[in-house]
């Protein structure tokens, strides 16, 4: 039996499991076959990767100076107690 061709509407629901290596072999090959013939779905994957890169930059936020100062004081106080 030949599996029916994967459609874009299904692709976008499987893409996270694909990126997380959580697909069974059969679904994996259907998804990768789809990706070869469907440039917009390829672009969709690119967009997801771009948002991941963007999200990673949010991590670079510095703590508020006041909170940081208090925490370092707390660390010294605990250490010297």
């Amino acid at each position, binding site marked *: 039996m030949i599996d029916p061709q994967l*459609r*874009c*509407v*299904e692709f*976008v*629901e499987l*893409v*996270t*499991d694909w990126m*997380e290596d*959580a697909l069974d072999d059969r679904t994996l090959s259907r998804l990768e076959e789809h990706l070869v013939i*469907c*440039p*917009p*779905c390829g*672009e*969709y994957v*690119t*967009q*997801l990767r*771009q*948002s*991941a*890169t*963007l*999200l*990673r*930059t*949010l*991590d670079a*936020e*510095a*703590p*508020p100076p006041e*909170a*940081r100062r*208090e*925490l*370092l004081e*707390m*660390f*010294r106080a*605990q*250490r010297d107690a």
Partner: protein
Amino acid sequence: MGHVVLDAPDSAVLAALRAGDEETFAALVDRYHASMVRVARAYVATKETAEDVVQEAWIGVVQGLSRFEGRSSLKTWMFRIVTNKAMTRGGRDARSVPFSSLGADEPAVDPSCFRDSGRWQGWWVSPDVVGHLPEALLLSKEVRAKIDAVIATLPSSQRVVITLRDIQGMTAHEACDVLGVSEANQRVLLHRARSKVRTALEEYLRDGVGAEA
């Protein structure tokens, strides 16, 4: 010393902290504080309470250093302290996060983006429905603020997962360890959160953020 040491094995970081090395502790605060506040924020009602919870969690970290046995990574241990403190506080504020709830089963993409009939039913209505996002705009402060706002609108459990995975950069295993959810549920939450962030990003850039500036 300082930031470099955070790339060292946990045992080296722990030894420095236990020896009272302030630079190592400062590096830890610089690296994790903002993400901890984001995580705590999902459990409590206000940003102020979240800040408060994280201050309390840092005290717990410092006081627990001598007892930490290294069975999990230092990072997951610290974030578990945050979620535990936040849940206690969240309970008091009557706003706990139900991790049993995965959120509504919404489609990743607006169904109107796909053909609804014919030979190509379920395929994109047109190839340019998925536009190319300009790299330069992605790095702008405005776009980052927009995405920050979108994350704040996500259901709490989705917000925590995307924070740990994509903002903080944890592995799936680490995130599950912090939150006590199964890998499968973690993926569902991550999928829903990422889909919404992507949609918001695309809509925002399509509506001509560059043109406004």
